[in-house]
């Protein structure tokens, strides 16, 4: 920016002496990244995820490969991955809990939420289950049923389920609970794999300021 008619501070001299300016530039780069991510300091990790789970999850997510960002990025999009924590479960049902940081999601709207899970089935069998979306009640802290999906899987491997607006709203509020109830006699635990590289996860797509734009329209 020119300073009141004076010479522009970026001009008027030879290229910066990189060795002398290196520390300054590094500090500038750090501050720039933290500001854009709305962080005051670098996060300190409290619950790091295993590298195997992370690697598999990233491979499952579709999208442009790293280094090829979206062509027209007007706003700032986020995709948040939350790995399942197994809640109260028994042979007839499996509870999966997903936590989303309200500091990251807060003020933004979750535009899409996908459940990704790995199923292992014997050959020539199908597996049918009801996926119940549970949300926190407005009156108390109990979980209540918001909606449910019937899911039929015919082969082993990774599968995805697009969750509806109720689940998106729950992600926006920071917590999503899913309950999986199998239709047949097959024990849930032997079908859905939850160990290391096969851990189920939810990928939530968030756009900052989306809610604001909708209101203006």
């Amino acid at each position, binding site marked *: *920016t*020119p300073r009141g*008619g*004076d*010479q*522009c501070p*970026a*001009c*008027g*001299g*030879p*290229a*910066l002496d*990189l060795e002398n300016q290196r520390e300054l*530039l*590094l500090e*500038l*780069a*750090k501050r*720039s*990244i933290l500001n*854009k*991510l709305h*962080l005051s300091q*670098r*996060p*300190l*990790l*409290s*619950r*790091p*995820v295993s590298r195997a789970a*992370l690697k598999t*999850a*990233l491979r499952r997510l579709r999208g442009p490969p*790293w*280094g090829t*960002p*979206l062509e027209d*990025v*007007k706003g*700032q*999009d*986020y*995709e*948040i*991955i*939350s790995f399942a924590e197994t809640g109260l479960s028994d042979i007839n049902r499996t509870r999966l809990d997903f*936590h*989303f*940081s309200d*500091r*990251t999601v807060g003020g933004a709207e979750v535009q899409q939420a996908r459940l990704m899970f790995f199923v292992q089935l014997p050959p020539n069998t199908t597996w049918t289950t009801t996926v119940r979306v549970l949300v926190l009640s407005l009156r108390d802290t109990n979980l209540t049923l918001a909606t449910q999906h019937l899911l039929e899987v015919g082969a082993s491997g990774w599968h995805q389920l697009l969750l509806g607006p109720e689940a998106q709203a729950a992600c926006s509020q920071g917590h999503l609970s899913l309950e999986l109830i199998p239709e047949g006699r097959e024990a849930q635990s032997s079908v859905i794999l939850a160990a290391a590289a096969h851990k189920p996860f939810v990928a939530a797509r968030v756009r900052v300021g989306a809610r604001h734009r909708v209101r203006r329209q």
Partner: protein
Amino acid sequence: GVDCQAGSKMCCRQEFFVDFREIGWHDWIIQPEGYAMNFCTGQCPLHVAGMPGIAASFHTAVLNLLKANTATGTAGGGSCCVPTVQRPLSLLYYDRDSNIVKTDIPDMVVEACGCS
């Protein structure tokens, strides 16, 4: 845009890469391994002002040079060497609550420079 060479004095793009491992950020930034920040530096004499990428055409360069020669008190001027093309930086990182977040931050990587 023009990339800076040794001894460049005119407006150019200086490459600058921040290695996340070097600054100890590789534990919370999962991808990429570094940030190609780059920046603009160098002089912007009046006759190249208003020409993104400096040499828009020979004719506009001559016209601007004529303008510069006829103007009074042109030393310095108000022209800046600024980014003319930028692209987003894609980041995959752990946030404060150990969520894994992917985002594209707009206008973070300087691709080309020119005189404002």
